[in-house]
């Protein structure tokens, strides 16, 4: 049995999600926009998922819009707000440790004449609300930061930042990429002071190809995809009923156990770190108080890709940096003060609550072996 420790890249769909998707592909295959019964049934399936996801983040279901994934949600957040408010207010503030779907989109906007301010962690590897607030001004239309960093598991001070920003500049729209935090930490949009959040299904045991953007009532967004006015015109294109239904089913299953699973993965993280603590040349890149689901380490002098393939030969799947960047060296680690050789040898282990101690034992063993065998 292979050991899958790359759950921050994607997760295995749960049985409930698969069942919901199959149901929507075999029996409930109507187009939600059709006026007849088959259409209505499909629409009800979509609305059911919408309701589940809405209540899981403390939102009204009318504020939940389905997209093709969090990358699209993030694009929509940045481009949509820039389109709606960016004529007069051209500044966008983001953190310097964002996922590429925010960072690259911001760069694209930069080329179109927007001013992008990227806030880096301070010396201690942490981000501070005050730095964000000081970067904002009356010309700022949007601030965007992720909840949990996908590479290190660092939990960003989103709530503090957004609350402080909103107090001083109530017109700035706040967006949070919650992909790595959803169903892992409790999320409430109001408490977080977030006007928009992005979610992804396949990180929570749903299916790839579907995501969500929450848009608070009253926030205007210019759609990126135009067409048949589905999702109230925010995201045209026939809704992918199977994927959406699967998303809902996965969310329904995971929501009640957020606390339980957090404790469980916390214990797993502690166990893993304990196993690694005796190993010479292994450094932990994740902050102590980060999300327990992600552990980033460096095996000194062993390039991550080679180590990754060595572990792969033992049927253990981990990731080097973020899988989305396909092996490219990560600038994000550098932001956290992890540079050069240490960054070159970074490996990300990402768990679920179903990960077992035995699997971690085998990983630690393989890592030790790899450390001895792998050169350069």
């Amino acid at each position, binding site marked *: 049995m292979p050991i899958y420790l790359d759950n921050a890249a994607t997760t295995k769909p749960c049985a409930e999600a698969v069942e919901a998707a199959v149901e929507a592909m075999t029996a409930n295959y109507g187009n939600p926009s059709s006026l007849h*019964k088959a259409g209505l049934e499909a629409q009800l399936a979509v609305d059911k998922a919408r309701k589940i996801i809405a209540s899981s983040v403390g939102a009204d279901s*009318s504020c939940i819009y389905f997209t093709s994934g969090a990358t699209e949600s993030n694009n929509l957040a940045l481009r949509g707000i820039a389109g709606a408010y960016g004529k007069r207010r051209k500044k966008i503030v983001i953190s310097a440790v964002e996922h590429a779907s925010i960072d690259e989109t911001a760069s694209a906007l930069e080329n179109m004449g927007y001013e992008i301010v990227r806030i880096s962690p301070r010396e201690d590897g942490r981000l501070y609300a005050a730095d964000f607030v000081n970067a904002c001004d009356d010309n700022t239309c949007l601030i965007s930061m992720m909840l949990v960093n996908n590479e290190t598991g660092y939990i960003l001070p989103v709530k503090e930042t957004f609350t402080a920003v909103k107090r001083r500049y109530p017109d700035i729209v706040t967006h949070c990429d919650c992909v790595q935090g959803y169903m892992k930490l409790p999320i*409430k949009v*109001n408490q977080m002071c977030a006007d928009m959040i992005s979610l992804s299904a396949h990180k929570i045991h749903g299916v790839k190809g579907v995501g969500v953007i929450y848009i608070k009532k009253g926030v205007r967004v210019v759609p990126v995809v135009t067409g048949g006015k589905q999702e109230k015109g925010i995201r045209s294109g026939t809704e992918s009923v199977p994927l959406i239904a699967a998303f809902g089913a996965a969310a329904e299953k995971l929501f009640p156990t957020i606390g339980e699973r957090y*404790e469980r993965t*916390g214990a797993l993280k502690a166990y893993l*770190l304990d196993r690694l603590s005796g190993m010479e040349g292994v450094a932990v890149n994740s902050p*102590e*108080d980060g999300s327990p689901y992600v552990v980033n380490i460096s095996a000194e002098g062993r390039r991550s890709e080679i180590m990754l393939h060595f572990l792969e030969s033992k049927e253990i799947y981990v990731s080097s940096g973020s899988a989305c960047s396909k092996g490219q060296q990560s600038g994000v680690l550098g932001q956290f003060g992890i540079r050069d050789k240490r960054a070159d040898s970074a490996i990300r282990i990402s768990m679920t609550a179903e990960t077992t101690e035995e699997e971690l034992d085998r990983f630690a063993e393989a890592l030790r072996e790899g450390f001895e065998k792998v050169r350069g």
Partner: protein
Amino acid sequence: MTGSQKPSEKDLKRYEDDFLTIKHRRMIMKEIVLVKYGEMALKGLNKKTFEDMLTKNIKRRIKPLGHFVCTSAQSTLYIDPQDDDIDLSEVVERVGKIFGIAALCRACVCEKDFEDICEKSYEYLEDILGCAKTFKVNAKRSDKAFPMKSPEICMEMGGKLLDRFPHLSVDVKNPEITVTVEIRDTNAYVHAENIKGAGGLPVGSSGKAMLLLSGGIDSPVAGWMMAKRGVHIAAIHYVSPPYTSERAQLKVEQLCEKLTDWCGGIAFYCVPFTELQEAIKDHCPEEFFTIIMRRLMMEIAQRIAAKDNCLALITGESVGQVASQTMAAIACTDAVCRIPVFRPCIGMDKTEIIEISRKIDTFDISTLPYEDCCTVFTPRHPKVRPRLEDIEKAQNSFDFEPLIQKAVENTEMKTFDIAK
């Protein structure tokens, strides 16, 4: 390896701090919600009935959020959370939609000791005063045994806060933040943000009425306005398949669900109306279609109202808005009614109605594009000034009674309860 890590407990702690800040805070100081009564505070001997009704409504609404102790004294209700992880902002949001409340606020509980009040205020008000420029202190001393008088409290407290937050200045006329210190019987309370309540009277204190809910913009607003005056709402809706779709009915059910935030539980009656509408089309002159249809709707509504102990009907009509809402048309419709018909939107412009529907968040649902029973068989040229005898003559040309009875018998009932 950079130091061994023991993340489980610490992580959990930080995660609580970050996401359940309130819990973290409440360990240091107790925070409660103060609810100030609306006009019911002016009631005389029956004030207690209103109070009980309001307390009951509040308890029902916040019960899903955790354990609370609610006590009332001096025209104020104290909502005291008993569990550590209760989200008070959610409590405030829910209670803000309950009628009978003039204002509400989150407040920090202090000992009745000036030092303690100041100490706790520093921390409690740090966030809000940190971002403000001007403030003033307001004191209410209902316990006259407290050694300092109100003006004294204001001055002393103002001075202390200025020392602590030197960037602030006092502005008694137009302050950004008003810090209120209340010295009451058992404790002192400090709060800085008064939130306006929904006003009106507690739902249920005025009896029950039947709302004719079409799915348009006006009728939910009418229901909300009557609920505001303490009326417990039941709703009735007419469906005419295949002329109206199932989606139209679902839309109305969605409206009911929205209204429960304000009105509490709603009994929803769905009347099969197709046969009656077809009979009207077959037997009555076209120009009278709408008015006769409305008369039949009223007839059915009051029969069901009687069964459900409703004392009145509620509609969303507004004079002159459409042909069936001219004064003459309303008079013809009213002629069949044996119980009062309340039309709270009667003197309002469409824009005013829309404003309320946006506020109560029914607008987006109301404007979904499904045909409802009112627009089936709309006459091309409806009679704007119908005469009652003409209408009665037209209606008497056919015996609608058996169909009315059948519709009433086949009416389906669903209940919508407040959100969990």
